[in-house]
């Protein structure tokens, strides 16, 4: 950012720039992989070899790479985690969650003919039966730092395909906002 001219390429014919011969950086990470890929995949003399291949188009590769690389961190970078820094929203959400949970517990208890008082606490095990609320609970997990909820959904730590992740984050935030305003 501070250096507008960055020499990421190798310097075969320009030793005066302080770069060492390519043997030191050509095969290492001295050169941006994206720059290499756009050349070795898309450029260079193309002659038919004996082995027929379909090189992945650099654009397809980009899409693929995006799926692999992007994670919730990326979503955060893009600023769709604004709720995370807003304590009023986060705590408000938690109250809603708890209230929701209590209501669900009461409902279930009534349906089962049991005493509501016995179920006055949220029970995670119920979530599987409640798809609607699952999203909400997931949101809460997203809102909190992962380690707190690590036991619930360790998968969250893995880099996931971004589109799905992002979509669900936005969805969740939308849901959260709705809940907030109807309160």
């Amino acid at each position, binding site marked *: 950012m501070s250096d507008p001219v960055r020499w990421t390429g190798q310097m075969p014919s320009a030793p005066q720039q302080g770069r060492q011969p390519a043997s030191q950086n050509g095969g290492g990470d001295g050169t941006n992989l994206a720059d290499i890929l756009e*050349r070795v995949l898309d450029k260079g003399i193309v002659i038919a070899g004996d082995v027929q291949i379909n090189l992945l188009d650099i654009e397809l590769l980009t899409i693929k*790479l995006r799926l692999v690389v992007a994670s919730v961190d990326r979503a955060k970078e893009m600023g769709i985690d604004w709720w995370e820094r807003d304590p009023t929203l986060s705590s408000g959400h938690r109250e809603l969650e708890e209230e929701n949970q209590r209501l669900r517990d009461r409902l279930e208890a009534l349906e089962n003919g049991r005493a509501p008082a016995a179920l006055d606490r949220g029970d995670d095990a119920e979530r599987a039966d409640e798809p609607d609320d699952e999203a909400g609970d997931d949101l809460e997990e997203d809102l909190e730092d992962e380690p707190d909820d690590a036991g619930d959904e360790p998968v969250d730590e893995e880099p996931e395909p971004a589109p799905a992740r992002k979509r669900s984050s936005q969805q969740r935030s939308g849901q959260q906002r709705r809940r*907030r305003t109807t309160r």
Partner: protein
Amino acid sequence: MSDTLTYVYAIARDVDPAAVAALQGVGGGAVRTLDAGGVLAVVSDVDRGEFEERALEERLEDLEWLAATARAHHHVVDTLGHDHLVAPLALATVYFDDDRVRAVLDEGRATFAAVLDQLSGRAEWGVKVYGRPGGAAAAATQEKPGSGAEYLRRRRQALRETDTALDDARDAAAEVDAAVTTLAAASRSHRLQDATLSGESDPMVLNRAYLVPIDRAADLREVVASLEGHPRIRVELTGPWVPYSFAQAPEGAAP
């Protein structure tokens, strides 16, 4: 059938076999040259199991393998291009054996010679231009929004400013392109790199390769250096590269 296939990295001229003796190629194979009189191929043996058709299709989808192979390919081409005239081939050009490669060289000798002539005394440089984010938009993302509505209002404003900034950046990039083009023998456009691929958060507005005579490299650097601190764009120069983007058979002369 042997256990290996012959992987071709580049076509070159006047390469002493000793110059490649220490080079390791894709999969760790020793790099060697196949001379066919006038032009030669830079090759190494690769594992047949790894490069056979079906296996290769799968491997090319494996990003780690692809990255390692691309770097190995580039390493050979780049090291050799240091002080030889080379025309790189596209990644994973593979033949059953050395004789097949010699046959291809024989067949395409004139074409390959023409490609090499075109590249002689020239190097490829990459110029990438990124838009700089507007100052106001940056400030908006730093302060906490007081409410959801406030947040949305700021987002909208930031988006508008981003649009204007992008237009300005594109205009500025066109000027950079014009300036660099005057120094270049040829230029080719590359796709704008996605932020994921470039690792840059600023939007890329120009990604172009220029074939520049070696004695003009200093001028090129000067042009780019003069753009340092430009309010709208950030210019990144990479190179010199072995001229991948200009290693092309002339129209209608494909071997």
